């Protein structure tokens, strides 16, 4: 602890400013406004839908509700999330040196569930639709005019299971660590080849060497905020680090192609 004191002393002024700003922000936002009762815990009390409401009819301030919420254990939350994915492949070029693989953006959406063990630790599992797209371009000087490329769109169903390490109170920071399993559902390729100048988009035909089972590690960060007592909104970014080669292991020669996927998005959860 003593080791941190110089840092805290040196930055004390900024820490105080940050703390005040955080508290001020929470009050400034409409959802935190005491006058906005319809979105506050009071409606929950009336209809008996909030945890606080189940406890009784007494009114507590919005801030106290949330503070209490965050300090409780054994809560469930479920919600939806969506955003964008950015995927790139880690792969051997082989001798095809003029092939360049670029990352590509895609869509990302799903449902999420969390069980809070402690104020600082939850377990989270999602069911996600994630696109793991990437583009290939031929860079051979003799082929520049042909604009040869293949843009791959790959559809995955992912199930990450993560520990959600949480810090803070009103606006809370999250660190996610875990693993995921996934299935490669389908894909499309949009191609320009030496034989078709107009981009041709076709469904990807799986081959016997395609490994449609995916899995690996997942990690990320997020920030959450409870605009209403039983609603939690989060912004988060995660990286899915695949440990599964998209090509099945072969007896003699092996080609490796691993996906790396960053997803960024928003989620909204209902806290039971």
């Amino acid at each position, binding site marked *: 602890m003593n080791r941190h004191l110089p840092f805290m002393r040196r930055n004390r002024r900024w820490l105080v400013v940050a703390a005040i700003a955080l508290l001020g922000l929470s009050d400034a936002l409409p959802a935190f406004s005491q006058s906005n009762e319809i979105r506050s815990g009071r409606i929950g009390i009336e209809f008996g839908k909030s945890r606080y409401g189940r406890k009784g009819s007494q009114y507590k301030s919005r801030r106290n509700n949330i503070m209490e919420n965050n300090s409780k254990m054994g809560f469930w939350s479920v919600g939806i999330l969506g955003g964008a994915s950015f995927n790139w492949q880690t792969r051997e070029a082989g001798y095809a040196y003029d092939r360049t693989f670029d990352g590509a953006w895609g869509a990302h959406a799903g449902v999420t569930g969390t069980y809070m063990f402690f104020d600082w630790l939850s377990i989270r599992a999602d069911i996600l639709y994630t696109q793991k797209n990437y583009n290939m371009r031929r860079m051979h000087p003799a082929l520049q005019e042909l604009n040869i490329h293949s843009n791959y769109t790959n559809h995955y169903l992912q199930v990450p299971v993560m520990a959600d390490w949480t810090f803070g109170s009103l606006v809370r920071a999250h660190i996610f660590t875990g693993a995921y399993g996934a299935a490669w559902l389908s894909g499309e390729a949009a191609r320009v080849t030496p034989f078709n100048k107009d981009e041709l988009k076709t469904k990807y035909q799986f*081959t016997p060497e395609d490994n449609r089972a995916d899995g690996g590690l997942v990690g990320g960060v997020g920030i959450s905020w409870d605009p209403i007592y039983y609603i939690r909104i989060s912004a988060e970014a995660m990286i899915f680090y695949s440990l599964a080669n998209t090509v099945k292991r072969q007896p003699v*020669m092996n080609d490796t192609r691993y996906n790396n996927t960053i997803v960024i998005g928003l989620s909204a959860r209902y806290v039971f």
Partner: protein
Amino acid sequence: MKQKLLYIALIATLVIGCRPKGDIYFDPNDPMNMAYTTYTGQFEAFWRGMNTHYVFWSEDSTDWDAVYKDMLPRFQELDTTYATSGTTPDSATFAGLYAEMTATLRDHHMSIQVLDVHTNKPFLFYPGVAEVKQRDYVVGQNYSFEAIQTAINGFVSSGLLSSGTWGEMGEQHNFFGIRNVDDKKIAYLWISNFQISQALSKEPESEGETAYIQNLRSWLDLCIKDENLLGIILDTRCNLGGKVEDLKYVVGSFIGKPLHYADLRYKEGVGRYEYTDWIPAIIDTVAAENRRDLEASNIPYVVLSNAMSISMGEISAAAIKQLPTGCMIGERTFGAHGQIVSNSALLHDGSFGDKDGLHYVYTSSMQTRFRGEEVLEGIGVSPDKSVLQVESGYDGAMEKAIDYIKAY
């Protein structure tokens, strides 16, 4: 703090290390990868080149990994024998190993040229030819140029054709003939190779070449412009192939709208199954003044084929077969439809090695799948009306074609 960073680095290394690395893929056309001095090295170069450059792995039943495991010790044994006794393998042994490896490969364009690494004695294999020779309708048949030349001359003497002339351009030959049926005409062309574009743009240098070019022009003129045309016969029997661009003459001249006759795909990477999707192959119509829409005119177009209709010789047959008035008569063809692209920078497959070096493999660059068919590489295109030479010689299919046109 440093300790923590070390732990983090260690964990990161472990995680990243969980991704097994791939093998190193050598460019089979890089001379450095052909600088071997042993039979095993030669086998490795051949096996790896085939592994990445062979375009039919998706269609082939050959277990190429099993081939590696089975054959590697046998080539190592050759090296051991040479090292201990200085003995090189005899032709039958050496050729037998390569023949065994390639016996079930589908690519019928394939030829494999290898030199004994110690004696430089050359060996040449045609796995596709070996397969075709074993077909029951091929055994005992003569598909030489002399055989079909004799047969075509016989068409004139027997009255199957009313007249005709031979043309010659280098090693290529053609024959243009006419069969008069009352006041109508059937236009007949036999051609040994498809080099029509090249021939029509060439200044003839001999009488034979003049006749060769004139035969092509006469056949096209008769087919496109003659009011008394009853039907067309294109004879691709014993045709050894050529330029696919010639489809514009033998098909594009006879259609009123573009014909999507096949789909093509090739490999866009080093992976064995790293294919593009199927790309439509379309034959465009030629200029209106140079074509006749056979469907609109209701004129039959017969293409004759046999087991030695090879490559463009059978691609043209497969395309004509798809025309509304088209009909293919004869035998199932050779089965070499994979197209060849000579620009090695374009694709990641096809021929590899060094023609003047210790090994060279001539192989297709693209898979061809005719419309409404599976990939017929190694199988051949089946005719609409089967007439086997083993039953009726070269005349049988010709007679059938004329009867068909007359009755159309």
